[in-house]
């Protein structure tokens, strides 16, 4: 148990959270679900709208062919049933950014149902810190259905520049898959791990770019609590419109606290739609749910049921790329990788491809994995770039790694070349030679430096002779300084020890 869990005021001592997520993900299409208007982000308001998106009288929706293949891919990648028949339904509600007064969605017969994905979740009590122990957990995918997005309401005067609510319908009609999980998640950290795994799958199969900042990947969280050991679920609330991983975790944690305080006081949870106040880190009730019939769903008479051929499903199955979990297993077996490094590499298909190319070229897969998952990823994060958006070629990184592996370049100097390789590209060996960075492993040179350092640091040398190894790093540092950072560290350490102990 972590220190947090030992504290008596932790709600998790008394209650088990039960969490299910609904994810809305924008599909990777050029045009909208039912109209030919373009799907773009950040354009001028109402410049990408078609009369169909505006809900003009007399218009008829025509389904975008591409979304069928995308829905099938999602279904297959989540071990779900792809239903050969699904039905579009109208979800009726009134809101200014919904011009028709209904959203075309799927209700009783969704296109995808009854699947699961595997998620690496933190082991309970191992905390949130990096490198926490994980275990594979299977999370059920209840269903996924096609629907159109609504427009955007801008309530903030600071953003809109004038009073009233501003409505931009560019987003109205953008194709979505709503992916609903089973209530299989048991903590905020598990919810976040599931979301990351799902996003990674969506990107691998090129169904969605799933960029949260662009609103392409949004999440609602259903949260309830029950006393430990009880099988029956408690009453749940739904937290709407969570648009970052941090907010998903923060909102779930805040809602767990809110519900536990009500339950501790002997109260009852009311079924409600909640919002998350990011500033105050608190959830609050937006509206109470009186009953589920509010939306008066019915089959849309403008649209014929969507029939999907088995042959199409099989053709797409044959064409499906290797998925993150499969890649992870293969990397572990083929390259002997393990743990968090593998997780980082396989989270992005582009990074995984870069790694494989580099690992083969340098024939040092573990070194390549470490370089890419740590040093290179840090460079990418700092610049907010994907690996294939830099000047660094996988062959160049492979060459850098080889130079280090062969002892010709110190790790420190190699690290210093990396930012330039990322920004400008280039050949590491040529850079090393031009700048005279090649490591000196000539024992004559190294002995000279070591001898000078030993004679100049008598006190430290005495301590080491007396059995205290602590000053050794200091002496190492002095030698490297004398060598201008170019001495092969292994050789320096060896000679230093030998000469201090007097057997060199």
């Amino acid at each position, binding site marked *: 148990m972590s220190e947090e869990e030992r504290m008596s005021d932790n709600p998790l001592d008394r209650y088990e959270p039960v969490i299910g997520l609904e994810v809305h993900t924008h599909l990777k299409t*050029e045009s909208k679900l039912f109209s030919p208007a373009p799907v773009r982000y950040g354009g*001028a308001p*109402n410049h990408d709208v078609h009369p169909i998106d505006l809900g003009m009288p007399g218009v008829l929706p025509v389904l975008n*062919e591409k979304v069928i293949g995308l829905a099938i891919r999602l279904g297959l990648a989540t071990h779900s049933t792809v239903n050969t028949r699904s039905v579009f339904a109208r979800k009726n509600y009134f809101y200014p950014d919904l011009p028709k007064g209904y959203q075309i969605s799927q209700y009783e017969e969704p296109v995808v149902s009854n699947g699961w994905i595997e998620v690496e979740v933190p082991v309970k009590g191992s905390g949130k810190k990096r490198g926490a122990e994980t275990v594979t957990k299977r999370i059920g995918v209840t269903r996924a259905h096609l629907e159109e997005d609504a427009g955007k309401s801008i309530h903030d005067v600071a953003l809109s520049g004038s009073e009233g609510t501003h409505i*931009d319908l560019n987003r109205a009609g953008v194709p979505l898959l709503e992916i609903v999980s089973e209530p299989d998640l048991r903590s905020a950290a598990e919810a976040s791990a599931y979301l990351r795994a799902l996003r990674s799958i969506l990107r691998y199969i090129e169904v969605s770019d799933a960029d949260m900042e662009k609103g392409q990947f949004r999440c609602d969280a259903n949260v309830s609590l029950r006393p430990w050991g009880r099988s029956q679920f408690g009453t749940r609330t739904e937290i709407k419109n969570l648009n970052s991983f941090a907010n998903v975790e923060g909102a779930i944690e805040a809602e767990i606290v809110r519900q536990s305080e009500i339950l501790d006081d002997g109260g009852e949870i009311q079924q409600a739609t909640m919002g998350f106040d990011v500033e105050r880190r608190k959830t609050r009730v937006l509206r109470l749910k009186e009953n589920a019939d509010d*939306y008066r769903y019915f089959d849309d008479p403008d649209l014929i049921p969507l029939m999907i051929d088995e042959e199409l499903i099989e053709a797409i199955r044959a064409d499906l790329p290797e998925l993150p979990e499969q890649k992870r297993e293969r990397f572990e077996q083929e390259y002997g990788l393990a743990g968090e490094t593998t997780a980082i590499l396989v989270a992005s298909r582009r990074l995984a491809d870069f790694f494989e190319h580099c690992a083969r070229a340098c024939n040092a897969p573990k070194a390549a994995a470490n370089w890419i998952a740590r040093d290179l990823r840090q460079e990418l994060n700092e610049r907010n770039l994907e690996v294939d958006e830099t000047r660094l070629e996988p062959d160049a990184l492979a060459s850098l790694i080889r130079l280090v592996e062969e002892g010709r370049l110190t790790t420190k100097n190699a690290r210093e070349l990396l930012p330039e390789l990322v920004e400008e590209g280039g050949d590491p060996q040529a850079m090393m030679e031009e700048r005279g960075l090649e490591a000196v492993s000539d024992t004559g040179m190294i002995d000279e430096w070591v001898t000078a350092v030993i004679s100049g640091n008598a006190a430290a040398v005495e301590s080491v002779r007396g059995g205290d190894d602590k000053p050794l790093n200091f002496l190492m540092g002095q030698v490297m300084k004398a060598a201008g950072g170019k001495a092969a560290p292994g050789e320096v350490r060896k000679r230093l020890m030998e000469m201090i102990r007097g057997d060199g």
Partner: protein
Amino acid sequence: MLALYAMSRITREDVERTADLARLSLSNDEIESMTHDLGQILDHVEQLQALDTQGIEPTAHAIPLATPLRADKASPGIDPDLALANAPSSDAYAFVVPKVIEAEEG
């Protein structure tokens, strides 16, 4: 499905609730006559339900067509001035509506 499908007789409360969901404001007389008329429609449907439909696939649409599809090709939206032509109020190409206090997205 809506409660009114399952019952042969519709109550005044059903009508009031449905009108509320549809944002319709009905007078007392209208509620009375709606309750009566909708009840009659449901009675008629009830007669149809006497038929044995066991083993017959539900009809989702009257025309036996394959789903008509459109290739994923984008074409420009309509002229934004035209899109906004009937808007009672607009600003910088946005429709402007009275301030919505609570974000109630569906």
